[in-house]
């Protein structure tokens, strides 16, 4: 579905070097790593916003083969922050149809927007303005906008940032549901190790712009976490799940 091959990127100093991984259809991958380790940069490279060295292959086409519009039909990206403003929720979700539009939206575009709105239960918010929404609502709207793109790959930058527990769980369940039901590959950065362990199919741990470890939740070991974050933790296994507790 999507393959990242030997990807490197530098601003003035190297941020990412030699990153390799693949995501299959319907797979949920969480990228973990400390602040400044290159997580967001990696997402931006995959999204075609930055121009990295190496290759990103989407359904066997490189990013260079795809026009910006065609890329936007296959891949959607939800950045960590968006500005709010006077657009309504409906208008914002309709923007997800932008890559498909000629002069303006068609009835098909409106139909898909309504479909996404009911999928995410956003009916009550549909004609509210963005600047009247709470953090959790805003995040859902941004994900809805990405879904309206009908992407094969969904990139999310810290989707649970600044949300309360209820909203965090709701968003992560939603992401998994989308991945499984629509066969979308989800690649998301995360800070919360416990939540990542609960909702991931696979975890990539990044340290200094390189993949340090990759695999199932077993990669969230004491040693790996110490090596990547420099923090001593205790990893407790409970009913096939792991709980990570910072030690003293």
């Amino acid at each position, binding site marked *: 579905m999507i393959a990242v091959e030997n990807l490197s990127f530098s601003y003035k100093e190297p941020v990412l070097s030699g990153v390799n991984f693949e995501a299959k259809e319907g797979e949920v991958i969480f990228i973990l790593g400390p602040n400044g380790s290159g997580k967001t940069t990696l997402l*931006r490279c995959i*999204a*075609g*916003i930055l121009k990295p060295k190496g290759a990103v292959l989407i359904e066997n086409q490189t990013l260079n083969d795809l*026009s*910006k*519009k065609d*890329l*936007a039909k296959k*891949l*959607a*990206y*939800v*950045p960590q*922050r*968006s*500005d*709010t*403003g*006077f*657009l*309504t929720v*409906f*208008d*914002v979700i309709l*923007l*997800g149809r*932008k*890559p498909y*539009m000629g*002069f*303006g*939206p068609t009835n098909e575009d409106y139909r898909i927007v309504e479909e996404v709105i009911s999928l995410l239960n956003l009916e009550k918010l*549909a*004609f509210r*303005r963005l*600047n*009247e929404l709470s953090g959790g609502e805003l995040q859902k709207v*941004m994900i809805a*906008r990405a879904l309206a*793109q009908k992407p094969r790959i969904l990139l999310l930058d810290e989707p649970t940032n600044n949300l309360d527990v209820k909203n965090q769980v709701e968003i992560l369940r939603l992401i998994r549901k989308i991945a499984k039901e629509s066969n979308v590959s989800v690649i998301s950065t995360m800070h919360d190790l416990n939540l990542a362990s609960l909702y991931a199919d696979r975890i990539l741990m990044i340290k200094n712009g390189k993949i340090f470890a990759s695999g199932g939740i077993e990669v969230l070991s004491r040693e790996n976490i110490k090596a990547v974050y420099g923090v001593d933790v205790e990893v407790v296994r409970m009913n096939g799940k792991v709980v990570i507790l910072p030690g003293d």
Partner: protein
Amino acid sequence: MMEYSRRIRTAEIVLVTTLIFSFIASLCVGSYSLTPQEVLSSLLNDSPILWNIRLPRIVTSILVGASLAVSGAVMQCILRNPLASPFTLGISQGAAFGAAFAIIFLGAGLLHRTGESITILNPYLVPFFAFLGSLISVSVILTLSKIRDLSPEAMILAGVAMASVFQAATMLMQYFAEDVMVASVVFWTFGDMGRTNWSEIYIIFLAFAVCIAYFIFRRMDYNALTLSDETAMSLGVNPQRVRLEGLLLSSFLTAICVSFTGIVGFVGLVAPHSIRISVSGDYRYLIPFSTVFGATLLLVADTFGRTVLSPVLIPVGIITAFVGAPVFIYLLLRGSWR
């Protein structure tokens, strides 16, 4: 859904009706009042009062109001700043500088008094230099942003810098100029819709038509830009390109208006924000609605200015600022501005 589309529909009807009504009313009133029937028959009979004086003035107000409003709406989006208006990039100060230069050094503005009204002789030199002046500041900012990839915030600051350079240069010229010339420079800066003839109106109309067609074509890109550049890029929009083209066209349109009519403040702020707060922030509606509202606003202000103290004409720029500011503050307090 219902409520929202009803709001859009109502706004559409109210705005268009108000514009038509203001148009008819302003044709009727003036130092020589006419009934609508008389207006119609005078129009058909080539009456010089209407065709040469009242109508050009009204059409100019409509076009300039529409142009300033739509330029403001677009600039607020591409510069990511609610305070952005056609004058943010130093366009008006550049124009004033150009006009002052033409009047003081080229003698373009020999004052010609007839009773209470003052006119500037040699009508083409001043607008031409005003246009050049405003283009200088725009092109400096556009060039900087092209070669150094300036952020929208940096563009605004560069605009503020250009504005103060031009202001200082204008003041310097005025300081050493004769009283009469200073008077005519000051007089030029008051926006006045009565300076244009039909061929100038065609020029403004042409610029307006090209720009609004482009802005409407880009309306969804502007919506995408209100979220963030990154989001816009992920939707296949090229933010740099949309920003540069939008700035170029809106500045050009403003520069043309300003050079023919002088400086009219506030329309570019009041019109788009009023629509944003009371109707919609969606550029599919914001562009046409602000255009119509801006046209109405300037037309009403100009008609008020030429009738309230008749036969003395109050320059429309003074009225827009006086009436616009309180209305604007009211809207800010009422609206969901966060």
